[in-house]
């Protein structure tokens, strides 16, 4: 296997795995903070119990997010040293700022929150969970500022063989961040919403602690619905942004080989990838133009035209990302999002009728729906990152030029660490799922784990 493929595999495995845990941290931290706020305001012990029950599941997930995040801070230097040299002037700054502003806050106040139940005042204790929620979501902002530079480089100049920062303000107000960040946040909200919905449904089906789980169900319904709507609305703006800045990604996501005006939306396309043409397609007329420009006309560029254009602009080479992969990732993401919107709407219907346990089939379905946001989140990132191929930094640096030299990091090193991380991550996933299942299916009235101490 070649060094490039190994390095990409390593990054893919560790990063997708890390992002199994991040969205739940982002969304559930806010939801738990909301529960505790209601408890603080009303003094109702049920809300305290909810804070603690969901908080316990939050902590299991949080720990995994933290430890897998450590790898992220270092692996750019490990496997992507040429990339680190080239963009360090720009890319290192948001990473350092993320650690200084967000990681310190998050890690310090998660300690205050978990250990402080009876050691700090109620007000300070409430503040600490809000600080954790704020800091987690702030860390997402800074890492996405770094990622946005790769999607749409701004505020820089290439000088002395590397990219140098010229405008910090431009970097942090990258147009890409205004759609990508809310999209990721909404992804976190919907992940947490379905997590709580699914577990609540499991209990409601068994009539264990119906009061507790009805309340959780209703809160999560609202949360999931807001998240699902936001994900769609923001995702739409993000797609429009993408048509402007990375049209190739959009074309690949739609398997649109030839430019079209008006462009149709693919329901199912079977293509010939070596010839780069359609073999069979079922398309909805003009819908893609509508998605791209909010009107039924407007040209959306196709893969083949873009390839010609990019060759003229950037020199000879293949500028087409892995089309089939992008196409299906896009569909998995949008499909998961649509399904979640539908399910959240149904949940709202039952919640408004005050009959959340009304439909057994629906309750049976919801625990499985916990997987939907995970599918959507992962597919979304694969689309975002692989859709940028062959670019590491769009239009500036290709993936193959960013990898560590094989003379420094030999293939065998990378194979060893891939094996090491895969084994470790596989085992930890087993443990995490075991613990989450075990504590999710507990009756909140029968607490077994002490709070406030390890």
């Amino acid at each position: 296997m070649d060094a490039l493929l190994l390095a990409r595999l390593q990054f893919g495995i560790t990063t997708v795995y890390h992002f199994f845990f991040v969205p739940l941290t982002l969304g559930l931290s806010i939801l738990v903070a909301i529960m505790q706020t209601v408890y603080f305001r009303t003094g109702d012990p049920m809300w305290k119990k909810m804070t603690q029950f969901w908080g316990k599941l939050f902590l299991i997930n949080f720990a995994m997010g933290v430890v897998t995040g450590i790898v992220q801070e270092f692996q750019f230097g490990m496997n992507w040293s040429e990339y680190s040299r080239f963009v360090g002037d720009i890319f290192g700054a948001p990473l350092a700022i993320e650690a200084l502003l967000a990681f310190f806050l998050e890690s310090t106040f998660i300690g205050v929150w978990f250990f402080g139940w009876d050691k700090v005042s109620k007000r300070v204790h409430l503040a600490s969970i809000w600080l954790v929620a704020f800091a987690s979501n702030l860390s997402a902002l800074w890492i996405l500022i770094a990622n946005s530079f790769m999607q749409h480089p701004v505020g820089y100049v290439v000088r002395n063989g590397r990219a140098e920062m010229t405008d910090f303000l431009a970097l942090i107000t990258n147009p890409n961040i205004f759609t990508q960040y809310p999209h990721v946040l909404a992804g976190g909200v919907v992940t947490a919403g379905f997590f709580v919905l699914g577990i609540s449904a499991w209990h409601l089906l068994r009539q264990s602690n119906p009061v507790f789980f009805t309340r959780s169900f209703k809160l999560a319904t609202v949360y999931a619905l807001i998240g699902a709507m936001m994900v769609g609305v923001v995702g739409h703006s993000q797609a429009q942004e993408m048509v402007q800045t990375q049209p190739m990604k959009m074309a690949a996501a739609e398997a649109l080989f030839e430019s079209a005006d008006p462009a149709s939306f693919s329901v199912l396309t079977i293509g010939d990838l070596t010839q780069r043409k359609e073999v069979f397609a079922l398309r909805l007329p003009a819908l893609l133009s509508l998605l791209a420009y909010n009107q039924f006309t407007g040209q959306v560029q196709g893969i083949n035209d873009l390839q010609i254009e990019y060759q003229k602009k950037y020199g000879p080479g293949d500028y087409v990302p892995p089309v089939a992969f992008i196409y299906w990732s896009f569909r998995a993401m949008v499909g998961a999002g649509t399904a979640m919107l539908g399910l959240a709407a149904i949940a709202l219907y039952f919640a408004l009728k005050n009959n959340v346990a009304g439909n057994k089939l629906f309750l049976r379905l919801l625990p499985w729906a916990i997987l939907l946001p995970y599918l959507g989140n992962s597919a979304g990132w694969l689309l975002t990152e692989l859709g940028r191929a062959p670019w590491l930094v769009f239009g500036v640096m290709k993936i193959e030029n960013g990898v560590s030299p094989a003379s420094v990091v030999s293939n065998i090193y990378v194979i060893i660490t891939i094996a090491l991380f895969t084994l470790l991550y596989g085992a930890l996933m087993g443990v995490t799922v075991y613990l989450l299942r075990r504590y999710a299916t507990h009756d909140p009235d029968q607490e077994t784990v002490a709070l406030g101490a390890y």
Partner: protein
Amino acid sequence: MDLNTIWFILICVLFSGFFLLEGFDYGVGILLPFVSKNDDDRRIVINTIGPFWDGNEVWLLTAGGAIFAAFPHWYATMFSGFYLALALILVALILRGVAFEFRRKDNRPRWRSTWDWAIFIGSLLPALLFGVAFGNLLRGVPIDASKNYVGDFFGLLNPYALLTGIYGLALMTLHGAVYLSLRSEGEVSERARNIAKKLWLPVVVLLFVALGASYLFTDMYSKLGVDPGVVPILGGAALLSTIWFVRNKHDGWAFLMTALTIVTSVITIFTTLFPRVMISSLKPEWSLTIYNASSTPYTLTVMTIIAVIFVPIVLLYQGWTYYVFRKRVSKKSLAA
């Protein structure tokens, strides 16, 4: 003073903070099997660092981020060059981090002892390997004209670096023992104090052996001169006096002394390196320095402004948590 120097100092501060704080976390993790007789003891031990270890570890992440932002070539050369060693550290930190959270979730003895092992190994390995890494930084490693590391993994395990690794490991374990005696009560505190008494002499011996080896393998003495200045002397004096405080049960003072030893050790290493960040053993002019490895003045300026604003804030709230959780941990305090 130019911005490059300021960032060199700031990174020195971050590593000082990291080893000062995470140093006792590692020490406590390493001592876990040796100071506890039963699960109650082990819980006391773990809870002494419970609220802090995660925040302490962020000092390392911030140091890594700061190196990336301020000296990208240092970041690229060191982490690609020390590849396997760093991967081992990462695996250890992952295991250790989840172990704190996971061990309490099940009270079967086998489950708990599995995670106790994870805490032990996950503390021991980084405590050793960070010392090895810094030993290699002092000694110099093969770096070619294009700033790439051209040695292999086993080249990092040379006698000098192993010596500094063992010194670091022993010092952090002593630091952890002193911390544990300060932060716990009763038998656990007593056992930790006894271990500190036994560890002290080996640490002193290791320090002097390491200093002797540094004369042979590094340019520490030509850099620091005959009069090494107040910092190393202060560190040596602090370490020597530690035993007096331990014997007389002045746990707070003893902790202050080991803390001083750690911080002065880090400062001495950085002073020796300055203005280099990675010494090339092949050719002195191939060394990475704070100038040829750095970001642009623009980036350094932006980062300086952010650091000046936020580092004091971090110090304030992190310091505050040590105040909140200042009470000694005991069986009684855990039952409540």
